[in-house]
């Protein structure tokens, strides 16, 4: 018997709490939220993963970028309930214990962040790129990151950091 809002079921009433079970950074997680909550808000408010930032909340700035089944998406444009049974990765999952991931280390070394507000979004977009397109050209790096806005750095150091990680992998 499926609950309202579960696949194949009937309508869940407006603002009824719907339970969502997903994988977050490799570990099982779950929360309950109304259908109108975005994944970005659920990650932050229900799962305490506040590394995913809210910039524009309408899909323009990329600050909320997370990975959904390995692909970079805007968490503010995914309803929380749409994450059911999916694998979500956020910036919190990049570092292993105390060791920064290569992209994080490269951002640090190349001064690819100042205020840091856009940084989690850029890191997740770059993670998808490095993982899925290891031979991306510099032009492709810019295209892949073009959906993320940064007010501080002027972008060049961000591109350089990603370039460095790709070059390191290729070496």
């Amino acid at each position, binding site marked *: 018997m499926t609950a*309202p*809002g*579960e*696949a*194949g*079921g*009937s*309508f*869940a*009433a*407006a*603002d009824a709490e*719907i339970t969502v079970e997903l994988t977050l950074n490799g570990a099982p997680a779950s929360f309950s939220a*109304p*259908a*109108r*909550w*975005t994944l970005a*808000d659920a990650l932050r408010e229900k799962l305490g993963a506040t590394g995913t930032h809210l910039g524009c*909340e*309408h*899909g323009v700035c*990329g600050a909320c*970028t997370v990975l959904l089944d390995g*692909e*970079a*998406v*805007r968490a*503010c*444009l*995914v*309803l929380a*309930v*749409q994450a*059911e049974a999916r694998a979500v990765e956020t910036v919190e999952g990049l570092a292993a214990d105390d060791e920064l991931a290569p992209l994080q280390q490269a951002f640090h070394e190349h001064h690819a962040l100042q205020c840091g507000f856009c940084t989690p979004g850029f890191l997740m*977009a770059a993670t*998808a790129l490095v993982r899925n397109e290891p031979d991306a050209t510099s032009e492709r790096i810019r*295209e*892949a990151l*073009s*959906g993320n806005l940064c007010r501080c750095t002027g972008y060049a150091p961000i591109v350089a950091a990603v370039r460095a990680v790709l070059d390191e992998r290729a070496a």
Partner: protein
Amino acid sequence: MKPPPFAYARAESLEQALALLAEGGEDAKALAGGQSLVPALSFRLLRPTHLVDIDRVGGLDAVRGADGRLSLGALVRHATLARLQPSQSHRALRAAARAIGHDAIRVRGTLGGSLAHADPAAELPVVALALDAELVVASLEGRRSVAAADFFLGPFTTALAPGELLVEAVFPALPPGARTAFAEFAARAGDFALACVCVGVAPGWARIAVGGVGATPVRAQAAEAVLAGGGAGALQEAAATASRELEVYGDRAADQGYRRGLVQTLTRRALADALETA
């Protein structure tokens, strides 16, 4: 802002989706990739009473080609279109998909969503109009086919009735030797088009459709006649004709004169692009 409240159901099959849409009534909306619908909800421009989530419905994302005809399921993602190896005649579809937003948008956004949302500045409706796409609409009553020319009725308004779901777009085989192209201009890469043009040319046949300048995509039929007529200078003349014949609106992003100029330039570029391809 945050989205307003709505009743929510997730469909596992097309049949279920249609039943849920019918149950949801007049103000029910289908949700697929959400790249157009969710921002509209967040701005509270739309307040559906019911949302039917079709994002995981199987069988609606097929890409099938035969004899020059291209059938695309409504859930085909823009990223898939952007990677198509189309027949020569349908390369405009790939170019248009590549112009949509950014990677994160293309991974989620769908062909059906873009067509059903009918944003006047969207790319795929222009291609659908230019290339005479037939749009397949399903409901509990069955299926019907709507020509692209009859589908886009106004800004964000289509021929879809309550309870109906766009399930497929069929791009017919084009005349022998046809070449297509797409050109767009936006303030920044990935922005909505200030104007965009899709063209198709073959001996004695021409299609020029323009988006972003009016309530719906429109065909520049006088320009098409100029082009189909052929002759030296037809390309330049067709581009000029297109910019003159169409009703073009202006706003703070681009005034009327600027958009007319865009229509001319983009038509010229798209035609040159189409005619240069081998």
